[in-house]
């Protein structure tokens, strides 16, 4: 086999792995959209916020230290203890649940029955708020997140492929972990929504708000629940991306990358999010590899959007989305 082809194969594999990470973010979107009809632009910032909170807790940072110092002229920064990763994750999850409650209580409870586009813009506002809040709470420096996930080249795959093809594939251990976690997450979500009482209630709400309300399902509870789940997904995505490229502002931009994934897969479909993520991941890596050098590189910035745009022209509801039926 020739070198180019092997290289393309490696790129494809890496693209698959990257796609899984996109899919992780996209999952959070789909969950909220299905249950409440809110297109949650803040999902990426939630991932950033979760990762920031996690790092801050692990390092024992004082929240709002910067603000307090500026207001009272003190000089505090750390409590002086560190928290083990697992405990910090649980604590962060608590924060995300509180956030879910606050978001529902202060924002979306007041916006019931508004047009979807108004809700969307409210989530953009939420994204801005959270971004400023996260930075204010934990500082705006780039942080390293290390919760003990394996990282670096997977020697086993390298060795096997070297023996088979005479060319070792570079696959990051972290990507493999992310893939496994994403698979577990999806299985977990499917089991939750199919076999538990809350899961069934959630699906009922997704189907028809008023009908769900009339059989005694508490919409408020379901919305807090679904925002909490989205917070959990954001936390997982934040851990994965944070471990990969550090906890920093650009983390919130992965939300933008998740948008074409959603469009491709359809807003309402969990399998769609996964398949869309994989297509985008592989597509953009391969495109960069094949066409990128001809046009000056960095095509990853726009390839996903243009692909999604062209795709939608032919199939407006995405791959697995529900058919759009319009009535006057």
């Amino acid at each position, binding site marked *: 086999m020739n070198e180019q082809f092997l290289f393309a194969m490696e790129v494809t594999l890496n693209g698959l792995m990257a796609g899984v990470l996109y899919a992780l973010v996209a999952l959070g979107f789909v969950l909220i959209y299905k249950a409440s009809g809110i*297109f949650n632009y803040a999902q990426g910032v939630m991932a950033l916020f979760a990762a920031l909170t996690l790092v801050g807790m692990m390092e024992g940072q004082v929240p709002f230290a*910067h*603000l307090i110092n*500026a*207001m009272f002229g003190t000089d505090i920064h750390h409590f002086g203890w560190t928290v083990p990763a697992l405990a910090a994750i649980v604590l962060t999850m608590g924060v995300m649940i509180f956030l879910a409650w606050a978001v529902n209580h202060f*924002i979306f409870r*007041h*916006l019931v029955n*508004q047009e*979807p*586009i*108004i809700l*969307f*813009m*409210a989530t*953009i*506002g*939420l*994204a*801005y*708020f*959270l*971004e*400023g*809040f996260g*930075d*204010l709470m934990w500082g*705006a420096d780039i942080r390293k997140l290390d919760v003990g996930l394996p990282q670096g080249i997977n020697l086993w795959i390298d060795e096997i492929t070297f023996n088979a093809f005479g060319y070792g594939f570079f696959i990051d251990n972290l990507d493999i972990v992310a893939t496994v976690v994403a698979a577990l997450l999806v299985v977990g979500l499917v089991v939750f929504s199919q076999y538990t009482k809350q899961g069934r209630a959630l699906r009922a709400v997704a189907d028809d708000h008023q009908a769900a309300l009339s059989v005694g399902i508490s919409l408020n509870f379901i919305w807090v629940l679904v925002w909490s789940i989205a917070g959990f997904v954001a936390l997982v995505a934040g851990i994965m991306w944070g471990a990969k490229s550090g906890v920093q502002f650009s983390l919130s931009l992965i939300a*933008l990358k998740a*948008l*074409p994934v*959603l*469009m491709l897969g359809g*807003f309402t479909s969990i399998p769609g999010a996964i398949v869309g993520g994989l297509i985008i991941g592989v597509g953009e890596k391969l495109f960069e590899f094949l066409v990128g050098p001809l*046009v*000056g*590189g*960095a*095509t990853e*910035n*726009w390839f996903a*959007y*243009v692909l*999604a*745009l062209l795709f*939608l*022209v032919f199939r*407006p509801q*995405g791959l697995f989305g529900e058919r*759009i039926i*319009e*009535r*006057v």
Partner: protein
Amino acid sequence: MFYREAGEYRTSYVEDGQTFPIAFDRWRYYLVLAVAFLVIPFVINDYWANAIFLPFLIYAIAAIGLNILVGYCGQVSLGTGGFMAVGAYGCYKLMTAFPEVNIFFHVIIAGFITAAVGLLFGLPSLRIKGFYLAVATLAAQFFLVWLFNRVPWFYNYSASGQISAPERTVFGHPVTGPETEPWAAYLFCLVFVVVLAWVARNLTRGSVGRKWMAIRDMDIAAEIIGVNPLAAKLSAFAVSSFFIGVAGALFFAVYLGAVEVGEAFGINKSFLVLFMIIIGGLGSIFGAFAGAAFLVLMPVLLKNVLVGGLGWPTDLAAHLEFMIVGALIIIFLIAEPHGLAQLWRIAKEKLRLWPFPY
């Protein structure tokens, strides 16, 4: 008391349909114009021009443009930054290729170029609606910024990858370049703002604007009563992009002078202009001005209070600004989805009856 329509007799349809049917409003409008043209140029200095007036005027044009698309025609766009970049780079290429032509025409032609690009990216709107369209316009945003970053022809093969505006004059006074007097730059932008706002106002209350609003309210129903969705949507995209292109050209040539595309016309710019029209009021020309003024003034004010007044570090003020903008958006959406323009309307209604409501 002073805001009355009693005693004003309008005897023709034209008089009844004018933009400011109440004499008080009309005189207020003339007063604002007079102050803007005859007073401010004489008192303006560098700080006021660069911190407040120029960004306000330029963002007002962009906001009117986006408002035509989002507020009047209902097609949500997140590609404003990209279209502003088209205007800026179009203007730059024209300025350097035809230095003998007046910059006024460069800016206008840059607007038409942007309109053509906007048409192209507006085509999918015939198939895609709502969120899907909003996300699809992100393609324009990222693709255009990438294009101007990567293709050296657009920045004339300059080593830094930036574009910087050469000096151009109007009636012998430089309006671009480092030698520009603040009043010249201000007046140059003001002329564009006044003309374009007048055009927008008259477009939106004419048959074109009514078609846009019909499409916004329900496109299938509009189609049934005989509005051609193709023409209406594409014309909205073209007109809106023209405005945004002019704003981009002015933003680059007059306001900033030198531009790095990713920084000046990134995704944040798209959101900023979108916020302006949400806070100002969707579907209102006044709202575009109010929103632009609000979001230009607020950071200046915050900075003065927090950094100048309380002595806090600037990064803290920047974080707070994010939080306040976000919170304001949410508060506006909850309390008054129609923005500052609606508050203004309510205030006027109250004022007509004041001080004896019943």
